[in-house]
């Protein structure tokens, strides 16, 4: 690894060098130090592998991994790569397996990743085969350490990672439980491919400043403005955040919109919805919060937009590409009205979402403008230079938090 000590021009968090978004060495270092470092990576939902032998293939960073439910009811994980010649072991997205057998040479593994079978280990008709020194127990799959919280399965390749709840901190844990008070039920998936570095999306979700400016759908209807009541929580290590707001019509709570009027945002071209049913909703968590965006470093976003609940997993796909895997969920005991609200309000989110489609493109607008940025940095000064919790959402504090943990772990 070459010296990256001089990539950052200062010690603070307010100037991010553009080089971090398109550098192969940095990408390799992220793979080693972030994704395979002492972090907890979101890998899936417990309910996706309900029974013994049920498996799911996914990615830790960009490394293929398998989650499987063992006979003892616990979820375990291992790298999706045969210990023999390195071929992918599991090719399906979901399934149930008695054992995991590689298609190439039929080496097979149990639910713990132990090598339990080697085809022709003793040769054929007394000839060939593995040497006597070959020990199957030395050739298991690389294990992923697993921790589960509120039905979310996290994994780490680093055995020194702190316990999950310590890693998250109490505020984040509480806000995760808030939107996952009981086991979730999957309502559907889709994946959005972003033609930009994964960190541009990680920053985007930590950026409440843009929300009512880029996403004009809500702003136009005056239902999500920075003048709404809400706030930002940033975890101690900086990596995780919660942005939340309460829906209170501005006319009703007397909020002052003069800053909006002064900023002359495009949002003031009012138009009405012909079908107002989309704007309904239920206060299902009994706290008046209608929007909560929560991130866990490095790859999880947990989203509540009214009654639309989604887990988003960020999967890096090279320096200039990332996949966002959207898993919409509800609960087994949703009544018909609530189940229907979730589907209706799914129109807000995802690649075609009224308030999220722009996020698919805006990272690419930055990615495409990188060629002229050698030695340049972006400006992350909104709300000051710290990475602390704030009552105002006119801030970039949680983006600074992202760079705080990033610099710590990357040692740059």
């Amino acid at each position: 690894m070459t010296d990256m000590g001089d990539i950052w021009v200062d010690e603070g968090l307010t100037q991010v060098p553009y080089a971090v978004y398109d550098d192969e060495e940095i990408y390799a270092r992220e793979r080693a130090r972030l994704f395979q470092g002492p972090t907890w990576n979101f890998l899936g939902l417990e309910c996706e592998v309900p029974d013994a032998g049920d498996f799911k293939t996914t990615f830790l960073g960009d490394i293929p991994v398998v989650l499987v439910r063992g006979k003892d009811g616990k979820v375990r994980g291992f790298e999706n790569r045969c210990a023999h010649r390195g071929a992918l072991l599991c090719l399906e997205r979901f399934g149930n397996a008695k054992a995991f057998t590689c298609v190439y040479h039929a080496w097979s593994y149990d639910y713990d990743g132990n090598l339990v079978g080697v085809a022709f280990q003793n040769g054929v008709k007394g000839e060939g085969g593995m040497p006597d020194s070959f020990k199957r127990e030395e050739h298991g799959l690389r294990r992923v350490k697993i921790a589960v919280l509120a039905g979310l399965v996290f994994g780490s390749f680093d055995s020194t990672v702190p316990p999950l709840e310590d890693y998250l901190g109490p505020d984040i844990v509480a806000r995760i439980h808030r939107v996952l008070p009981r086991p979730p039920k999957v309502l559907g998936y889709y994946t959005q491919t972003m033609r930009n570095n994964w960190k541009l999306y990680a920053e985007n979700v930590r950026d409440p400043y843009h929300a009512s400016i880029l996403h004009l759908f809500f702003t136009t209807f005056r239902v999500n403005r920075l003048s709404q009541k809400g706030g930002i929580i940033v975890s101690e290590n900086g990596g995780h955040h919660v942005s939340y707001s309460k829906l209170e019509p501005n006319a009703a709570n007397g909020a002052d919109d003069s800053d909006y009027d002064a900023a002359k945002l495009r949002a003031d071209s009012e138009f009405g919805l012909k079908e107002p049913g989309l704007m309904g909703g239920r206060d299902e968590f009994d706290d008046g919060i209608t929007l909560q965006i929560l991130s866990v470093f490095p790859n999880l976003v947990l989203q509540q937009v009214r009654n639309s609940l989604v887990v988003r997993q960020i999967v890096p796909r090279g320096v200039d590409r990332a996949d966002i895997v959207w898993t919409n969920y509800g609960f087994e005991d949703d009544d018909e009205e609530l189940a229907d609200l979730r589907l209706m309000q799914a129109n807000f989110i995802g690649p075609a979402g009224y308030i999220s489609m722009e996020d698919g493109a805006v990272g690419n607008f930055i990615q495409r403008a990188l060629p002229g940025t050698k030695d340049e940095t972006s400006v992350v000064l909104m709300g000051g230079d710290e990475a602390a919790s704030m009552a105002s959402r006119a801030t970039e504090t949680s983006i600074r938090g992202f760079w705080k943990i990033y610099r710590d772990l990357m040692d740059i």
Partner: protein
Amino acid sequence: MVDTAALVGTVSELLADYAHCIDSDDLERWPDFFTEQAHYRITTMFNHDQGLPVGIIDARNRNMMKDRVAALRKANIFEPQRYRHIVSAVRITGQSGGLVQAEASFIVVRTMIDGSQDLFLSGRYLDSIDLSGDRPQFVDKLVVLDSDKIDTLLAIPL
């Protein structure tokens, strides 16, 4: 019993007009292809096969389709882009009363303003069409995408 070949012709013509409407950016006319209470939903083959209900777009009636177009014109931000639909393999899968059920395959090529082109999406239309009025209209249109990966964003309807 209506002649199947004639029905294929009717449905093919409807789909050709429908594709032309979208591809020529005449989106204000797009909701007119549907009855007032029609349901338009885009989903993926995976979700469809697994019975998972969430849609990528889920418009429960024609007013929601009009809202979608209004949002695209006035609120949502995306780079100028056009679709080219290639629709083929129309099959009649059922009929009853004035309704006919039909299936068709499509691919959509997306062209960006800088000229770059990609095969954006492929999939099937699963349609229920009302033939009883002056012109055929969709009562239900389910767009089932073959892949569940969407490149960048899906702004314009399929």
